[in-house]
Structure formats: C-alpha cells, structure tokens
C-alpha cells in the first residue's frame, strides 16, 4: 500500500492500470482528457500492456470498445458531456450485447451555452440505457469504484459507468491509498467471458430482433441489472474485507437518528457532510444520503433509511424540463410512494454548469426542509442560487 496525492482523474487511470485492462479506445474531451492521457503514458512506458486505439469520435470510441469487449478483452473508455451524448445510441448496444465495458464519465454540463464545468446533465439522459451507474465522492472512491466496476461488469455481463464530478473531483489533488498491484490483480483475475469471438468461434452478433424476440432480449438486460444488486452487495463486502474501505449502494451519514435529511449524488456530498457536522454541533438532527449506485436504484435502502425521517430534500444537478420533477427527485418520489412511512419530499436544483454549491446553500436547504416538514407539504422546486 502506498499513500500518494492524485487527482480524481489520475486515480481512475491508476485503477485502470492495476485492473490490467487489455483495450482502451477514447476521444479527448475536457475534463476527462487527463485520464486517457495518463493511460496512454502507462502504455507507452510499458507499465500497462494494452491496445490503445485513437479514434475520430466518441461514437467510434464506444463502438470500438463494444467490438473489443466481444473478443473477451477487458475494456475501458472515458468521456464527458457532449462525448457521452455522442455515444448515446451505442450505449444501448453495449448493454444489450452484454459487453462488460467500464467507462469513466467525468460529469460536465451539456451545451448550449457551451460549458465545460460540472453538473449531472450528461449522465442523467443515459439512465435508461441499461448500464450500471456509480457516482463517487472522492478520488479514493473513484479509484476503488473503478476497480469494483470491472468485477461487477464481468460478473453480470453489463457495462458499468463510473461518474466522477468534473473539476471539483477530477482536477483536485488529494490523498489516495493505492493498494499493491498484485492485490488488485488477484481481486479481479482475468477470466474468459462467455460468447467470446475469435477466429475459431464464429457467432452472429448484432442480429435483427423482430417483434417475436426483441421483448425477451430487452428483458434479459432488465433481469441482469436487477440481479446485479446481489453482485454489487457481495463485491462491496469482499472489497471491504480485502482493502478495508466500506461502500454501499448508498453512502449514508448521521442517519441513525436523523429527523431531516438531504439526498445528494457525487462530490458535493462532501460539502453537505461538512454542513451536517456543523449543524450537528448545534444539536440539529440532520443526516445525509448519497446515492452511490444510481442504476440499479437502491429503492429498499432509501425506503428503510427514511422510515423515521420527517422531511427530506433531494438535490438534483440536472433538469427534466417539463417533467413531473427533476431526475433524482422523481426517482425518490417513486421509491417512496408505496412506503408505509414517508417523509415530506422537497425538490432542489443547484450547481448547474459548474456553479459552486456553497456551505450556506446547504444550510439554507436544511432550513427549507425543516420548514416544509413543519408545514406538512413541500414547496415547488427551489432553484438554489438562481438570480431573479
């Protein structure tokens, strides 16, 4: 074990190296580029034996990854924002062809106006493409989750997207514990995958799925991602035994006796944690839930954690224009609708296009949650820091 200072991006690159990836295809885009730069450096230096393919677009990057994955190779790619949007149609093929690709998506806003800063509007439109989605809070978690992602992907034969926030995580240097490479390689040994294409084994891939077959095919993906809940739980357990760090589908903080809570995703959870500590010092019973595994969505865990909570605020960092609510809020409402005891649920949107969510903003959110809980009904969505 080695304690080093790494940016979130480099933490991912080191995880990819230790996972002994065979194939990488990617196209540079801010704020993701340092990941693939570092990986190509590893390959050029001979520290990682892998094929790196320079492609002309993200659409080609993910297409090359699908092809490589079907040969049984361990495959990685990384992208952001417009790049992920450009991959959109192929993401569905990757999951339906059951290719265990691991992708780091460094979250960045979508144009227009052009914006390279952080929010969650790139990954949210990809909720329904059949990929497992993780969201991480720190460089350490980015490293650990990338390692886990390969194991989970190869067990359930589904692609996994590891989301890390652009700049506020991807470009922040912080302390990361890097385990010994052998330990990681023992943890995720290379194994032959089923349906492997080779010159000796010919399969027909990418078939037409007529009405008689399409439904069954899609149900396979649904069933696999549902089944992945077990694999993810086991991987988390095994990981904490070997590496000592504990992760769940949700990371909850001070929820044991919390009356009011916030639900967040990604790196801003850290700032929210800071605020929970401050409010706890003043005797406020507040807690925090961060959705780490967004797909499959941790319904049961959310219901259980919120059983005795009076009010909960849900912070979205992406919009669903014209929808019944913004993405995370809608999922939480859906999860809680049939729960016996449910809190008042208040929707918040903040931090779009890289606007900093400040300590005071989180304090305000907790105040609003408390206020609407006492009134017994939520306000319309509160847009944190919006002028006018």
């Amino acid at each position: 074990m080695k304690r080093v200072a790494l940016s979130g991006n480099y933490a991912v690159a080191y995880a990819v190296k230790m996972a002994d990836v065979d194939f990488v295809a990617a196209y540079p885009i801010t704020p993701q580029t340092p990941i693939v730069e570092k990986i190509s450096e590893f390959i050029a230096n001979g520290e990682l034996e892998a094929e790196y393919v320079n492609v002309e677009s993200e659409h080609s990057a993910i297409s090359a990854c699908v092809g490589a994955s079907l040969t049984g190779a361990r495959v990685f790619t990384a992208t952001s924002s417009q790049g992920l949007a450009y991959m959109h149609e192929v993401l569905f093929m990757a999951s339906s062809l059951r290719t265990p690709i691991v992708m780091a998506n460094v979250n960045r806003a979508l144009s227009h106006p052009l914006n390279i800063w952080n929010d969650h509007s790139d990954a949210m439109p990809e909720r329904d493409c059949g990929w497992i989605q993780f969201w991480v809070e720190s460089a350490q978690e980015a490293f650990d989750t990338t390692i886990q992602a390969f194991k989970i992907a190869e067990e359930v034969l589904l692609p996994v997207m590891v989301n890390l926030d652009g700049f506020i995580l991807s470009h922040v240097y912080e302390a990361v514990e890097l385990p010994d490479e052998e330990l990681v390689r023992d943890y995720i040994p290379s194994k032959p995958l089923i349906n492997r294409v080779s010159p000796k084994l010919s399969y027909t891939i990418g078939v037409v799925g007529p009405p008689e077959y399409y439904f069954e095919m899609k149900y396979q993906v649904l069933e696999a991602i549902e089944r992945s809940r077990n694999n993810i739980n086991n991987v988390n357990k095994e990981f904490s035994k070997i590496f000592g760090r504990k992760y769940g589908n949700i990371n909850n903080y001070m929820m044991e006796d919390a009356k009011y809570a916030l639900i967040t995703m990604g790196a801003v959870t850290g700032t929210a944690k800071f605020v929970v500590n401050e409010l706890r010092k003043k005797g406020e019973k507040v807690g925090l839930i961060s959705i780490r595994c967004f797909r499959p969505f941790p319904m049961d865990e959310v219901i259980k954690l919120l059983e005795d909570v009076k009010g909960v605020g849900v912070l979205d960092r992406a919009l669903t224009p014209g929808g019944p609510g913004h993405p995370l809020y809608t999922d939480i409402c859906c999860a809680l609708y049939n729960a016996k005891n449910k809190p008042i649920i208040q929707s918040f949107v903040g931090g779009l296009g890289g606007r900093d969510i400040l300590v005071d903003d989180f304090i305000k959110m907790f105040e609003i949650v408390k206020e609407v809980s006492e009134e017994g009904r939520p306000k319309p969505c509160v847009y944190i820091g919006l002028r006018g």
Partner: protein
Amino acid sequence: MKTWKEIPIGAMIIEPGSSIEFDVTLWRVFRPVLDKNKCTKCGLCWIYCPEGAIMVKEDGSYEINLSYCKGCGICQKSCNVKAITMVREDEKSST
C-alpha cells in the same frame, strides 16, 4: 418459441451457418432453369447470385440449389449465352 431465459445472452446466434436452416422454396414466382448444353461454365451466375444459391460441382459445372433461391432472376440477366431461363412456378406441371 424460446423464452427470455432460453435465448442466448446478447441475442447472439451462437451456431455458425444457421442460414442453412432457412428454406425459401416457397418465396419464388419464377424459378431459374439451367440448360447445361448451353452453359459455358463461365461462372458469372455464381458470382452474381446474391443468395449464394448456385453451387459449383466437382466437374466444374453449375447447379442451382432451389432451397435457397428466391427467384430474383439476376442469374438469368448475368448469363451471356442465355443458358438460364425463368419459369413460372405455377406452370411447373406444363413444362
């Protein structure tokens, strides 16, 4: 029909050459008939057939496998010596 559990993962067709099972005999209106006396064994029909339904025999002569012929007539058009004629399937008995 196969259930979702029985379909190979990723909807792959894992048996090679499965198109052999696909008989299109009933798809045709016209059937190609090859006159072996006129045929010069040039192989143009074999090249042009989009279904790969024309077979080369060991002696170099050609034969049309009607199980895979959809009756498109491309072989007839490609034949320079007019060795192939298209015959209506429903007039089979009268020819």
